[in-house]
């Protein structure tokens, strides 16, 4: 356990190294957020919806702030497989899956918190109807924090399954790009899931991708009533367990047929 913890810490420290580079990215992300909010505002002006505009703008800002949680991958593993230095990792007295799981989790968590803090501060300062609303209720906020943590566990498990695919072929850019895109669409990054047709939402919100950010955001805005919160968290827990289990089996199968390149 201690070994995993220190792997986590090392990765976190590494992610914190490039604070300067983060700033440019954050400003870009804020700009994209403003554009999206402007589009939804204009749409709303024409035809108001059942839920208030502030839900949508908050959804946009929270998605933008935790963008890095969705799209952060570990390029080192692929390099290691290509060059054969994966052999070193196999020598470690650690489970390979667990080792990479904590690494990716550290990267996703640190990377997104680093970006989320300034972005959310900015979004709070924006005027009503542009920015981020306060959480619907203190209880809802607590539930959404728990949901966000489960979302992090879930997305790390998903990322490891993606990496499992990349272990199988040496050039996996296409596969990785496809899985990432699927995630962006079904996690609500391209279009808030609350704006999908209601009949689609019933299915989409049950998929693993909706557990990453959509579920905690809905708890935050109060879109999900408090009474339904435990049920939502249960779905998140189930998906996390399922994806982690599937990932472990997948990696074990991969490890059996791994070939060390070298020379």
């Amino acid at each position, binding site marked *: 356990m201690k070994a995993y913890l220190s792997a986590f810490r090392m990765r976190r420290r590494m992610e914190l190294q490039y604070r300067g*580079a983060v700033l*440019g*990215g954050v*400003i*870009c992300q804020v*700009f*994209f957020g*403003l*554009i999206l909010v*402007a*589009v939804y505002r*204009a*749409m*709303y002006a*024409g*035809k108001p*919806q059942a839920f208030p505009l502030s839900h949508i703008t908050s959804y946009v800002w929270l998605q933008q702030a935790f963008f890095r949680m969705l799209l952060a991958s570990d390029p080192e593993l692929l390099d290691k497989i290509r060059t054969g230095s994966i052999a070193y990792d196999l020598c470690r007295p650690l489970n390979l899956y667990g080792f990479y799981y904590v690494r990716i989790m550290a990267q996703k968590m640190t990377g997104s918190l680093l970006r989320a803090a300034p972005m959310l501060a900015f979004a709070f300062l924006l005027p009503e109807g542009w920015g981020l609303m306060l959480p619907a209720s203190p209880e809802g906020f607590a539930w959404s924090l728990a949901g966000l943590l489960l979302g992090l566990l879930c997305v790390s498990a998903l990322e490891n399954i993606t990496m499992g695919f990349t272990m199988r072929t040496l*050039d996996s*850019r*296409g*596969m990785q*790009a*496809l899985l990432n*895109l*699927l995630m*962006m*669409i079904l996690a609500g990054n*391209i*279009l808030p899931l609350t*704006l*999908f*047709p209601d009949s689609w939402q019933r299915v989409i919100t049950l998929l693993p991708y909706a557990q990453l950010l959509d579920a905690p955001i809905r708890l935050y805005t109060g879109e999900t009533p408090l009474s339904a919160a435990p049920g939502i968290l249960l779905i998140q827990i189930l998906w996390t367990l399922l994806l982690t289990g599937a990932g472990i089996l997948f990696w074990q199968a991969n490890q059996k047929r791994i070939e060390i390149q070298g020379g």
Partner: protein
Amino acid sequence: MNTIRLYLHSMRMLIRSQLEYPLSFFMQTLAQLVMEGGEMMAVILLVDRFEHLNQWGAGDLYFFFGLMSVTFYLTECFGRGITGNFPYLVRTGQLDTFLLRPRGVLTQVMCSAADPRRITCIAVGIVALVLGSRLSAIHWTLDRVLLMAEAILCGSVLILGLFMIEAIFCIYSVKSIELVNALTYGGRSACEYPIDTYPRPLRVLFTVFAPFALTLHVPGAVILGKPLFDWPMWAVWVSPLSGIVFFAVIRFCFQRAMRHYRSTGS
């Protein structure tokens, strides 16, 4: 003429070299399709829920979306040299080799890369254009076709100019500036919707500084029969040329900056 032949020849070679790995190429092209398809689905779902955006109906919005995707991805496909790793060439000093050859630097950069994977994005854009033109019942005449061609061409030139900004910054400070993405990719995302969607500061940004509105939206709106401004027809024809003017200014800055170019070496 010689330059154009050279360019076409390099495009052929670059595209052939990418096709050498058919499976990887196929997967990446498919990924592009999902990406642009996802963007279009977002517009369709928004239209489904909200029905219209200001005076623009479903067909109009698809048309503007298609106009932007076709323009942007044609540029990415055939101008990948500039839209891709131009700043990287400057940063690593690889631009040095270009200075030795008896051709202009920009010509050589244009000839250095192509991105045929974007073909599926262009296809999505064409589908959106056709769908939009059907739904909005555009009455196509020769001058409308020509106006659209002018808009796409000038829009492409504008996008090339925008991507060159980062390369110019790189000549002075080796660090790359992510902020320019707000104009390039941000401009693409924003101007998929007509310019009157946005509040004043964004309107000014995308009309005066990065004139997407003048190159794409003004002619687009006229083709749809709902002009944005009460401009005479000649002004509508002149308006997209702002993209070329923009490129000319940036090109001038680039030539000036190249005098300061010091190779970073290896």
